């Protein structure tokens, strides 16, 4: 389980991971675009995760050895409970649909969460 980042800190709505996984920078960007496109001209988005882990790989048809492969992409490790995105300034229905679209771009199961009161 996530040790931190499990509560809403900025917005009124959030997308929480409920399974573990690795999220790449491309997936984060795809999810962000899905959110912003659905919200059109309203709202504000916060991204609470950052892909700071480089993942290396060897090219195809290369024999083992000859040193470590070159960095191929960047990712972040996600643990259950982690809030990945937050939203504010839009209706709950719009936020929910935006997060559904974002969740489809991510390799982890997610849950929509909402702030009550303060």
């Amino acid at each position, binding site marked *: *389980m*996530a040790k931190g980042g*499990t*509560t809403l800190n900025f*917005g*009124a709505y959030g997308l*929480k991971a*409920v399974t573990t996984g690795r999220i790449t*920078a*491309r997936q984060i*960007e795809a999810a962000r*675009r899905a959110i*912003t*496109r659905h*919200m*059109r*001209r*309203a*709202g*504000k*988005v916060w991204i609470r995760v950052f*892909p700071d882990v*480089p993942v290396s790989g060897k090219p195809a048809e290369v024999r083992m050895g000859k040193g470590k492969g*070159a*960095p*191929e*992409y*960047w990712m972040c490790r996600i643990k*259950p*409970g982690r809030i990945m995105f937050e939203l*504010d*300034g*839009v*209706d*709950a229905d*719009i936020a929910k649909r935006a997060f559904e679209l974002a969740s489809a771009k991510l390799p982890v199961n997610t849950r929509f*969460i909402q*702030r*009550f*009161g*303060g």
Partner: protein
Amino acid sequence: MASTRMTVTHMVPTPLEAGTVFKTGDYTMSDASVLQAELKDRAGKGAARATRRAGRVPCVVYGAKKAPVLISIDPRDVMKGLHAGTFFSTVYDVEITGEKTERVLPRDVQFHPISDAPQHVDFLRVSAATQVTVDVACNFMNAEESVGLKRGGVLNVVRHTIEFMCAVDSIPQSIDIDLSSFDIGDSIHYSAVSVPEGVMPTITDRDFTIATIAAPSVAEETAVAEGEEGVEIEGAEGEGDTEE
């Protein structure tokens, strides 16, 4: 203290009501609600887990220079208070079975990281004169009539709650903030808010910001994304490293 009766007829959440306190019906500020509790005989994580397995929430009542009392309450009572948005600013009478009633103020709730179910609640014993520091939720009103929001601005809530120091009986249920006169680019500072008598903010050295009405940033970003879609992906994620 004389109680203030207010009638709040609330409404379905609308787009720009982030941080709104959703209340219904009549309530009185100084009315103490009642929580039914059972005494818990053991302390520690084993006993707390057993309490949770039994479908209850372990709690502690402390303060007033008396020994702490371990109790358990129904999680539905906690969730009801939390959903109303007034849990931390409401004084409760905790009726402990076989024991006396304690007058308490909820101070902290621990949540499960995944399910967000309440795991533990801290209650502070209070009397009418007790001075407490308490977070009170901001209630943003008249969003539909706000000049800036009608022009497409976004309400950016800087503080969903404001921390006050006051007597237990004077804790406001929420702080109402009228948005009708604010335009895009305006900031709503503490000086624009009216608070009841005897209630002092803990931040006194500056006129702090509660919210701002910002221009919709998403529209600008979308314009950029649509214009240079391919460039954004390559530039953003440090993929230049793959060429090394």
